[in-house]
């Protein structure tokens, strides 16, 4: 267990280094910088701006400064972000530096404000996906080949086949314009998160339904279930106590990729429903060449995805004692 976690940590470091360096150099090798505007700046001002953020340094030096907690400036002038009080310490100290576009904020400020919103949206989406997907999947496994099963499977396949912004469009027409029950967009009350959460979770619900149906069918045909039935347990108990645990394994292993997908999907959903989450910052910051913000969001998402994948692998061993961690 400890060895597994340590090894994971090592690979995590490698992954992160890979992500950080690739996105760092990719972004900086592109023409156009964070201070490009419709109005061309006075060259002297631009030089000053570049110097302030150390953009006039060679790239390797910028990179080291970005990573490490050391100060590479010869004159001791430190990169200052946000309100101008704290020196920039490098990402190893958990500091993502000043944002280039939102001059008064550090990247940490922006992430701190937007992440809770995205997390709540994402959790609601995941909740929708799990509740809908598991119910549909288990129902379709229990009533295999009945009309319910066929209808549920068709619904699931359709859910996989539509982009989430189209689903969002239909939902808005249905629940906002035709039946004015929910607000069309914005953020503030829990009501605002129902539609976006659903639209974001729908494709994953569909996938979970398929996975849990398969898993349940496989488990229900096994010997220990027959034994449980034979010794006279009520079928509800057989289902809840014996079948579900094994049947849901594929769903558990899908939760890692699903979370990654929900993070990606929220880029779109946050735009449609005008939700001020982290996803909306990412695309804008990449287009604006806001180097630090876009790096910060990328790193954040990598950490999230990696952490959740590790959690899923751990959960797996608790659910299925046959699986050993060393192999994974």
């Amino acid at each position: 267990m400890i060895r597994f976690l340590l090894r994971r940590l090592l690979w995590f470091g490698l992954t992160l280094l890979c992500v950080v360096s690739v996105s760092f150099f990719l972004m900086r090798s592109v023409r156009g910088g964070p201070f490009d505007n419709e109005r061309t700046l006075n060259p002297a001002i631009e030089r000053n701006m570049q110097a302030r953020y150390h953009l006039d340094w060679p790239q390797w030096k910028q990179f080291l400064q970005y990573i490490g907690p050391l100060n590479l400036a010869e004159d001791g002038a430190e990169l200052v972000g946000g309100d101008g009080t704290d020196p920039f310490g490098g990402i190893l100290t958990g500091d993502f530096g000043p944002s280039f576009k939102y001059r008064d904020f550090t990247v940490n400020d922006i992430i701190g404000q937007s992440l809770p919103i995205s997390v709540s949206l994402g959790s609601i989406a995941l909740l929708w996906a799990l509740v809908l997907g598991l119910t549909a999947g288990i129902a379709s496994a229990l009533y295999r080949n009945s009309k319910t099963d066929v209808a549920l499977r068709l619904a699931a396949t359709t859910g996989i086949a539509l982009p989430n912004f189209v689903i969002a469009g239909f939902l808005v027409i249905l629940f906002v314009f035709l039946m004015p029950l929910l607000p069309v967009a914005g953020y503030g009350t829990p009501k605002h998160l129902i539609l976006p959460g659903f639209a974001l979770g729908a494709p994953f619900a569909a996938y979970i339904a398929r996975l849990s149906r398969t898993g349940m069918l496989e488990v229900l045909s096994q010997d220990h279930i027959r034994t449980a039935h034979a010794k006279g347990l009520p079928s509800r108990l057989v289902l809840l106590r014996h079948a579900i645990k094994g049947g849901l394994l594929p769903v558990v292993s899908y939760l890692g990729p699903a979370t990654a997908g929900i993070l990606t999907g929220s880029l779109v959903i946050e735009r449609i429903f005008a939700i001020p989450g982290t996803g909306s910052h990412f695309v804008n910051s990449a287009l604006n060449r806001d180097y630090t913000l876009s790096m910060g969001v990328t790193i954040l998402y990598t950490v999230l995805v990696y952490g959740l994948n590790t959690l899923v692998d751990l959960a797996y061993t608790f659910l299925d004692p046959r699986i050993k961690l060393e192999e994974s």
Partner: protein
Amino acid sequence: MSQVTRERWDLGGTQMEELLSDVARFKGESLWQDAWRRLKANRASWYALVFLMIFGGISLLAPVLPLPSPTAIDLQIEPQPPVAPWQELGNDGFRREYWDLNALDESLVDLRQMIFGDWQLSNWMGTDAKGRDILSRIIWGSRTSILVAIAATLCSLLIGVSYGAVSGFFGGRIDNLMMRIVDVLYSIPFIFVVIFLITIVNEYRTELEDSWGVNREVVFYVVIGAIYWLTMARVVRGQVLSLRETEFVEAARVIGASSARIVFVHLVPNVLSIVIVYLTLTIPAVMLFEAFLSFLGLGIEPPKVSWGLLAVDGSEVINPVRIYWWLIVFPAAAMGATLLALNVLGDGLRDALDPKLRGKD
């Protein structure tokens, strides 16, 4: 030694014929024949296949069909609702306006004008806010989307199959390292890298075209393909890992075949069935990804049209004053039906090609 066998098997002509006729009565069935039979027996997949063939045919023949132009702009105050075919079948208002078509499509449009003249279908599915016909845009858009899907999928196929086959064949350390790399790539949120890459490509598009002769769209396909090969590599590797212990690989090695030959001539054809199944499941994913990128404004660019762009147009005009349902319903239906058919076909193919997996999703 060889003489003994020769004698034993040197049968008389009639005896030989008898033997052969016995053999001929039992007609063997290859994997593919068997799969084809199973696929036909599976009604849902069969319908899906037929639907896809018909739709593919229509999309291929789009320039010849009497469709209105997908790009001819007719500024109106608001989108026009659909005209049912029985109300008005067609009219004589065809205007030849397209984006830069290739030579083949140009000549197909010439052919269309020879056959139908200026006659075109009415707006059976309505028009968008710029007066462009939705039906025509859906069909022309399907060409772009299918092209993106196929090109990107082939790209992922090329990378994934060779990577997986090499990793599985060599095994041991190399395999371990190669699969670790895949693991690392899996945990990178790829969307970010893609967005970076596409913004870079947008920045250097003229240079790319001038000095490399590479179209922006080609880069687009390659980039999408380059992120969808991971699963393929894993699946192929698993298969190759078990195949490499089989007798025919040993036989090949004994007669001195090189590693490259064993991998690409003997092993790859044997994993083809599972690869085809994954292809039918990757194409829908790629199409959705195209839609996603179009939504972010990084995909196909107007005046060209793709399903992703149509879906984006449709969801953008949603407003409480007037609901232009035809702008979202028809593109969504076309996209949904195609992806549904691909998914069903993929499931059916999996059942047909791998009987062990029957009845599982």
